[in-house]
């Protein structure tokens, strides 16, 4: 028996050792970016493996000023907050209706809402661009927001419907007997009880909108409207000769999402796993 335990402990030790090695490899690209952002150009070339000595914050400051990252972060935050709010505003009532629809409408509309999930946005980018140009929505935050809302709303409705269905019907019936109408049922019964669903949708839609590169790339050309992703995408071209500033910019782009993830990691893994097919 003691030999068995001993063997078990040895295996655990081996497992931890190999996972720790893999973790270091996995984290290294981020660590490398962060340490590089604190180096001088000389250090970057002469000592690619070593730590910055002494660490300097001037690259990050330079990247912030030259790359207008503050403005880009604000643009991204604005677009994300408005888009995700609108997605929830459209999707929650739709899910409420969906959860109550009966055959035959239920089957027809249930299938119809799945169609957008099968169509990648790459397939409609050209006609969408033409349409947005005619409507004067190119180079506007409103245009970008409407694109983000449209590409998120179908999936959000589908996910919310499954959460709304799980709310016991008895609660709703009781409220209706007390004289509540549909909007009140949705606000006071369904939404509070489907909290985890709302949280999951908020997480994956926020990550999706914040991280989206394709939408802004097509719709936004004006630098003052750039989102973080566009700015970062352009950084490599602008600062190809001043790499430490580039790493400063990358550090600014990489750290905030990682911090938010570390604080909310459970709801992130759950939300993003539910939101898988949105990617």
């Amino acid at each position, binding site marked *: 028996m003691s030999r068995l335990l001993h063997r078990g402990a040895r295996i655990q030790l081996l497992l931890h050792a190999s996972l720790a090695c893999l973790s270091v490899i996995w984290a290294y690209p981020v660590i490398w970016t962060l340490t590089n952002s604190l180096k001088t150009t000389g250090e970057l070339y002469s000592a690619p493996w070593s730590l910055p000595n002494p660490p300097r914050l001037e690259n990050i400051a330079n990247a912030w000023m030259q790359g207008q990252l503050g403005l880009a972060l604000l643009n991204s935050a604005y677009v994300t907050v408005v888009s995700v709010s609108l997605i929830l505003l459209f999707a929650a009532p739709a899910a409420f*209706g969906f959860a109550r629809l*009966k055959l035959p409408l239920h089957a027809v509309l249930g299938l119809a809402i799945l169609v957008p999930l099968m169509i*990648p946005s790459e397939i409609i980018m050209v006609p969408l661009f033409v349409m947005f140009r005619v409507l004067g929505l190119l180079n506007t935050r409103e245009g970008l927001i409407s694109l983000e809302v449209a*590409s998120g709303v179908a999936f959000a409705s589908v996910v919310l419907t499954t959460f709304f269905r799980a709310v016991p019907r008895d609660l709703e019936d009781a409220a209706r007997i007390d004289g509540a109408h*549909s909007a009140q049922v949705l606000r006071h019964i369904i939404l509070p009880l489907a909290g985890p669903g709302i949280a999951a949708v908020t997480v994956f839609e926020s990550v999706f909108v914040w991280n989206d590169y394709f939408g802004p790339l097509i719709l936004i050309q004006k630098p003052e409207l750039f989102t973080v*992703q566009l700015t970062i995408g352009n950084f490599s071209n602008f600062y190809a000769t001043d790499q430490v500033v580039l790493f400063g910019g990358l550090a600014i782009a990489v750290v905030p999402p990682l911090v938010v993830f570390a604080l909310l990691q459970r709801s992130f893994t759950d939300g*993003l796993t539910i939101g898988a*097919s949105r990617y």
Partner: protein
Amino acid sequence: MVFAATKPRRVHLENARNLLWVLPVFALLAGVLVYPLASGLLLSLQRTTGSAQGEFVGLENYVEAVYGDGTFHQAVGNTVAFTVVAIVLQTGVGLLLAVLISEVRRGRLPYRMIFFAPVVLSAAAVGSVWQWMYAPYFGLFTNALAALGLTEVSSSLLASQSTALWAIMGAFVWRWAGFNTVIYLAGMQSIPKEYYEAAMIEGAGGLRRFRHITWPLLLPYTYTVVLLTTMGTLRIFDLMWIMTQGGPAHATETIATYIFTTAFRFLRIGYAQSLAFVLLALVALLTLLLTLTLRKRANQVVG
């Protein structure tokens, strides 16, 4: 039975009321999805730069895409090759990490967090970081390979036609493997412990337990991973656009990057849209194929 006569009317009335809740979403989708698809269909039959009225050319664009465009064929080849290798690596690495983590008795959380962390980063950030990891002189990979004596520090994997696509694969696997690990870990929790205990009493070793219990019972999860990977890679654009813009010499050109350059660099709007519909056909075909083969096998195991 008493209600039989009144029920259909009540259902219709209730349906009509609930329809009101659903309508706004469909109105939105009609405007930003159905309309572009329909106008895209018309665009794909024209020769047009998008601004002036185009010239109707019938199926000419599609004929050119399928028979006459070598670069497009290369893009399709790259996309399919990338998809196949991505499927193997994503299931492989995802499953390997999941198996290792699931065997750990205490302290799984930090590993889960570290492997999942890249999922929350944007393609633009991941692409840029990895682009510079392959940079000559100071790049992480370049230095590591040079230290092993495999390449020169002055070279870059992204600059060579034979390695560029697979260098991007590194970024892709790094970004998504942890996601698949979380899916597989969820799947492993659904396998009853008794199966393993019974197998151990019968004297089955770790490898046999994996082959005869873990792998078959995880097939539905493998189906999910394969499907999501395929949907993601067939349309892949961001990493390529950030890291190489499809170069060198179209070595990393994918269908989506080629549609983008055709439309917005060469302003062949109509032709680009016909390429987009070819991509849609490919996505539909592969999704159907995967559903028919993998899902059937997965269901057999579960059912």
